[in-house]
């Protein structure tokens, strides 16, 4: 089963620095609803993410998990309820939306790199134009993160010249260049060949080990078990079950969770 291509024991995690804050709230969602036209896509979402938490959201396709994390940086608008990110409430105020997007990095299923810019330019664009960073500093920063995702030698190439796994690592580096406090991952490995999934997961594990607050929509259950401190299962636009990974996988409570896990793990 490709959704579980990387076995849990292949992921090595150093949990020593994964501290979850007791008081510092990164994301708070209260009674949030969203509709696409008449379709009620998210229903009564309540979620509180503390700083340093690694949350994995899973669920069948169409369950609203991608929509949920896209609401957190306002790529999707919610119609009812409250979303507070890093102390900023998301409303129609464009200025606040920009503020939130500066603090929240996002990695997409299809990478969404800019094909007309080099890897380096992809990484320096937002720091230069959004953070007003001097070009030289932005480039040094970009090279630092490209080195961290292990592809500094590709800096002058274009995205089209890289493999899928490399592109996704560039996308992660691009987000990190903005120095985000929260990272959102929207099925980051779903469009990758099996042998490339591990290199991307390793990069994500590295981030988690540094204490980054992460919300990941993924089907990589090995990653969820090893890295997440909380797993959320969604179905039909609702949070059906959430728990720490071990009890979640070993002893799911809700019928839908059991059914989903039995399909995805075997």
């Amino acid at each position, binding site marked *: 089963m490709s959704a579980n291509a990387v076995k849990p024991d292949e992921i090595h995690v150093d949990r020593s620095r994964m501290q979850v804050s007791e008081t510092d709230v990164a994301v708070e969602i209260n009674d949030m609803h969203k509709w696409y036209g008449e379709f009620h896509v998210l229903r009564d979402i309540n979620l509180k993410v503390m700083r340093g938490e690694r949350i994995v959201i899973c669920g069948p396709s169409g369950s609203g998990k991608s929509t949920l994390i896209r609401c957190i*940086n306002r*790529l999707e608008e919610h119609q009812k309820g409250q979303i507070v990110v890093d102390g900023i409430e998301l409303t129609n*105020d*464009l*200025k606040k939306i*920009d503020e939130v*997007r*500066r603090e*929240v*990095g*996002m990695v*997409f299923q*299809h*990478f*969404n*790199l*800019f*094909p*007309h810019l080099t890897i380096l330019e992809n990484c320096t*664009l*937002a720091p230069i*134009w*959004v953070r007003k960073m001097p070009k030289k500093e932005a480039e040094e920063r970009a090279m630092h993160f490209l080195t961290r995702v292990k592809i500094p030698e590709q800096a002058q190439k*274009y995205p*089209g*010249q890289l493999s899928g796994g490399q592109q996704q690592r560039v996308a992660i580096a*691009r*987000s990190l260049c*903005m120095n985000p406090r929260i990272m959102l991952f929207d099925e980051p490995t779903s469009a990758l060949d099996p042998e490339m999934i591990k290199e991307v997961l390793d990069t994500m594990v590295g981030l988690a080990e540094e204490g980054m607050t992460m919300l990941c929509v993924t089907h990589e259950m090995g990653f969820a078990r090893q890295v997440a401190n909380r797993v959320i299962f969604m179905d039909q636009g609702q949070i059906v079950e959430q728990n720490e990974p071990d009890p979640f996988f070993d002893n799911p409570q809700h019928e839908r969770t059991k059914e989903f896990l039995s399909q995805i793990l075997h």
Partner: protein
Amino acid sequence: MIDRTNVTAPPENVGPATAFVRGKMLAEQAAPSVSRGPVGWMREHLFPSVPQTILTLVCIYVLYLIVPPIANFMVFDAVWSGTDRTACATEAQGGVQPNGWFGACWAYVGAYMNQFIYGRYPDEEQWRVNIVWLMFFGGLIPLLMPSLPFKRENIAFMVLAFPVITLILLTGGNFDVIGTYLPLAILTVLALAVAYGFARGSQSDPMPGLKATAVIFASLFVIVAVLGIDFGLERVRTDVWGGLLVTMVIAVTGIAASLPIGIALALGRRSDMPIVRFICIVFIEFWRGVPLITVLFMSSVMLPLFLPEGVTFDKLLRALIGVALFSSAYMAEVVRGGLQALPKGQYEGAMALGLNWGQMMRMIILPQALKLVIPGIVNTFIGLFKDTTLVLIIGLFDFLGIIRSSTSDATWATPVQSITGLIFASIIYFIFCFGMSRYSMYMEQRLDTSHRS
């Protein structure tokens, strides 16, 4: 899985049920001579099969029928010098050529060359037009060559200085601008207020917007003031302009105006704001729905009827505005095609990084969208360049118009006169259009970073 280590030699025969492992790798060999060189190329492309061979032979025969007569007419039988019609007429027609002679009369084109280029622009003032040619090609060619430096200065010259200098040189400048200062001042105040209000509305710092607006209007004031200066140039009315000059003025203005207006309209048509979208749709559909000839007719025949007595607009100016608006509507739809072809992920990637709308459009969306539609944009440019010939119907003598009108001159009246004129017109139009086409192909290849195979 086959154990490779045990295999020493390949088996004699490889059947479907036999396991096979290659024991010895083959070295690279040269291709056979029949598939290499000119012979190989001809075998592959001209004579690969019997039907293809027949087609090739038919094509060669058709070329044999067409090319020699054309070459004879245009080059070998053509008349290159002469003073009047006798040089290009047969003895039966009262000239010096033998009866049955049929060739191009380039002598007539040479005699009229000055008119073809300048129209009836006064001879002693033509140096002004020559300076404009020099500035145009001298500014454009380095701009089109990506390897040359000073692009920023080059663009600034072509966008700011060139139009103003050209306007003054061609018309003579010394415009009556006193009446425009007050409306411009009112407009400045309004624009500043709008910029300030907009900044307050979005709760951002108003200073950058106000500064930009102030700079724009300050430069407008400078331009207006410069246009009002008397440089001592003689006034040349636009009704004596003609030939290639008019064609180029209309085409270049149309091209330069249609791209930015078209981009703005395309963005407006995809806007979330219903009023902006509505205005853009109405504008685009109106100009696309009306033939250019109608636009030109209306501007020259009907517009004066609606204007108050004594107010006149220059005929050329009206044609310029008509052509520019007409082609921007086409351009808008071409650009919109590019915008729609971009995956939604590009917008989301840019937004998620915190880029605002303007930055996203300028740095992410438009560069890619415009690159995608280079063929469509150049298509519109070429169409516009050729459509300039339509201004003939409102009494402007563009390049084709002046060639047509020159054929009524009795000095050179021969049966080959108008054929020669039309061939000359075709050659010049072709050079410009083919040049644009080749340049666009070069640009497409240069900008291609997709690395698709």
